[in-house]
């Protein structure tokens, strides 16, 4: 069995350092078929038991795709089959979700949900999250939707897997399924006292089931693992600094990229002399229209190369400033009357007329950046072989599938050639909801076929205009 599941376990055996769950992609065999068919999944993860969602049932999970009126482009539902859960021959449970861990602790919560419904120990569940090659399509991680939509989904998935085990044991013992009990990662027959572990039942099998439309799941008052306050998965890696956020990641032979930023919004490039930058050791420069970037073997060299660029910009004179920002915002808001009156009920005028006391005041809140502490960063690796081109990107985003689509469109390659993986990320707060401009970060990627490239917004970024949170000091 040369599967990813097997490889996970081999590290403990060989004494290699333990790998965080989201680091599996470095060790898993390359998946050339991004939309994996059932047989490919078993090939990748090894024999066992799996629960899939067909296109029809995937529709249920994708219903949270926001309406286009909110500004997200509608995405097609997947017409392929995607796996939600796999139980390997060693009893290891792998659950798949397109949701991203951005500090809201869903890696822990979703694993609790799966363990609870499948009746297995919490520690046997590994979550594979936000990887466009391996996880089911997901519109994005936003709006506090994971708990209301993804936990019931994974509960139904785990429930279906439990049914597979119950039915497999019933067949083995030639008894009715409803006489059997699932608990502690095994199926027991109370009448005989016999039991079979999930690992035993999964051994040598490739049992699969589509997710049923409806299946009653465990009610909250019977939960034993979910809903409990437990330490965050991988907590130790966060207090030791071992966890690698995107800016911390490296790949062999990686170059550090830096993008030349315009001095002001909307500035256009008149000219750029990159001769001094190019003369520095190991430096490559890229220009594509107004986009100029450099790459070098180290962060420091890249910074030096960026500083050596001689660019002339044409700035647009009429810029919005803090002084005239709010009148502009007000004007724009009234122009978009449809948006403004969406969901409006009753009459403001008559309510005000009937009010006992009327207060006129204008309140403004500073126009601030989301400013997650982790800088925007991405690591891209472009490979080309007989099977075609493949772009793999690690980046913090709330919408990996949208970033994938954007990159595919930018580089004019099929979606299936792009794989976006979201390492557990240093927060987002909605700021990474729009794939937006992610392509900008990688516009240089295709220059570096075969060379991994890390691009971070490493330039000093001000948090002064950010919504920063401080300890509250006692007033004295």
């Amino acid at each position: 069995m040369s599967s990813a599941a097997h490889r996970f376990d081999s590290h403990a055996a060989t004494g290699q350092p333990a790998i965080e769950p989201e680091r599996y992609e470095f060790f898993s065999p390359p998946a050339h078929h991004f939309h994996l068919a059932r047989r490919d999944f078993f090939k990748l993860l090894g024999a066992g038991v799996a629960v899939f969602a067909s296109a029809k049932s995937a529709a249920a999970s994708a219903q949270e795709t926001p309406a286009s009126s909110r500004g997200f482009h509608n995405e097609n539902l997947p017409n392929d089959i995607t796996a939600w859960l796999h139980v390997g021959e060693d009893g290891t449970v792998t659950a798949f979700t397109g949701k991203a861990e951005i500090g809201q602790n869903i890696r822990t919560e979703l694993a609790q949900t799966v363990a609870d419904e499948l009746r297995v120990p919490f520690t046997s569940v590994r979550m594979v999250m936000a990887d466009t090659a391996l996880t089911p399509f997901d519109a994005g991680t936003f709006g506090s939707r994971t708990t209301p939509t993804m936990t019931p989904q994974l509960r139904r998935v785990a429930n279906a897997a439990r049914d597979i085990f119950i039915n497999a044991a019933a067949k083995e013992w030639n008894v009715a399924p409803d006489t059997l009990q699932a608990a502690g990662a095994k199926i027991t027959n109370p009448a005989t006292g016999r039991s079979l572990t999930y690992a035993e039942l999964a051994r040598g099998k490739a049992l699969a089931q589509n997710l049923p439309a409806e299946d009653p799941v465990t009610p909250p008052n019977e939960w034993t693992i979910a809903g409990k306050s437990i330490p965050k998965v991988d907590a130790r890696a966060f207090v030791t600094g071992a966890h690698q956020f995107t800016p911390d990641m490296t790949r062999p032979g990686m170059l550090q990229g830096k993008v030349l930023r315009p001095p002001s919004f909307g500035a256009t490039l008149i000219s750029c002399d990159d001769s001094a930058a190019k003369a520095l050791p190991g430096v490559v420069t890229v220009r594509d229209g107004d986009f100029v970037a450099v790459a070098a073997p180290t962060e420091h060299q890249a910074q030096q190369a960026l500083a050596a660029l001689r660019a002339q910009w044409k700035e647009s004179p009429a810029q919005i400033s803090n002084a005239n920002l709010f009148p502009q915002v007000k004007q724009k808001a009234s122009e978009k009357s449809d948006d403004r009156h969406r969901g409006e009920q009753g009459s403001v005028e008559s309510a005000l007329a009937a009010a006992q006391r009327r207060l006129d005041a204008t309140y403004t809140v500073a126009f601030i950046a989301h400013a997650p502490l982790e800088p925007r960063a991405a690591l891209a690796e472009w490979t080309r072989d007989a099977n075609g081109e493949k772009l793999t990107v690690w980046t913090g985003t709330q919408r990996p599938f949208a970033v994938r689509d954007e990159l595919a469109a930018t580089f004019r390659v099929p979606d299936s050639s792009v794989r976006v993986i979201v390492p557990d990320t240093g927060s987002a707060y909605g700021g990474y909801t729009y794939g937006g401009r992610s392509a900008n970060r990688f516009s240089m990627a295709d220059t570096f076929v075969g060379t991994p490239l890390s691009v971070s917004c490493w330039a000093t970024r001000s948090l002064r205009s950010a919504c920063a949170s401080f300890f509250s000091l006692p007033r004295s």
Partner: protein
Amino acid sequence: MATSLEISVNGKRHAVVYPLDTPLLVVLRDELGLTGTKYGCGEGQCGACTVLIGNMPRRSCQVPLSAAVSQPITTVEGLEQNGNLHPVQQAFLDAGAFQCAYCTSGMIMSSVALLRQTPNPSPAEIAKSLQGNICRCGTHPRVIEAVTRAATAIGQGRTR
């Protein structure tokens, strides 16, 4: 102009060749691969890159390499000893004092420095001392709880 010099990081001496004005953070991450120290803002506002120089908490993005040669440097990777977490690390873990945890290394280093100077800080003293460490997730009450726990743990025998 790159200069060859030696710095002491987590008890080991390292020869590095960099211009003297290179931020210590760059050398730690880029040269020594110590990525536990995080780049947050690059201008000394967020505290994610906090390390100890001697016993003092310093923002490594603002410390030129030339100012880091005379005293030993401790990063978050240097706190663990013989597989045992430092009491402050253990307290952060036990109190669940993080969400995304990008600020955690810096928070821990600032807390270690505080407890070396003030073994039993009040919540107000903790808040004041960690004021330069920004957490965007809002874990501040738990951080204060963690530092208080760590102070107790250290007081009960583990002197670090």
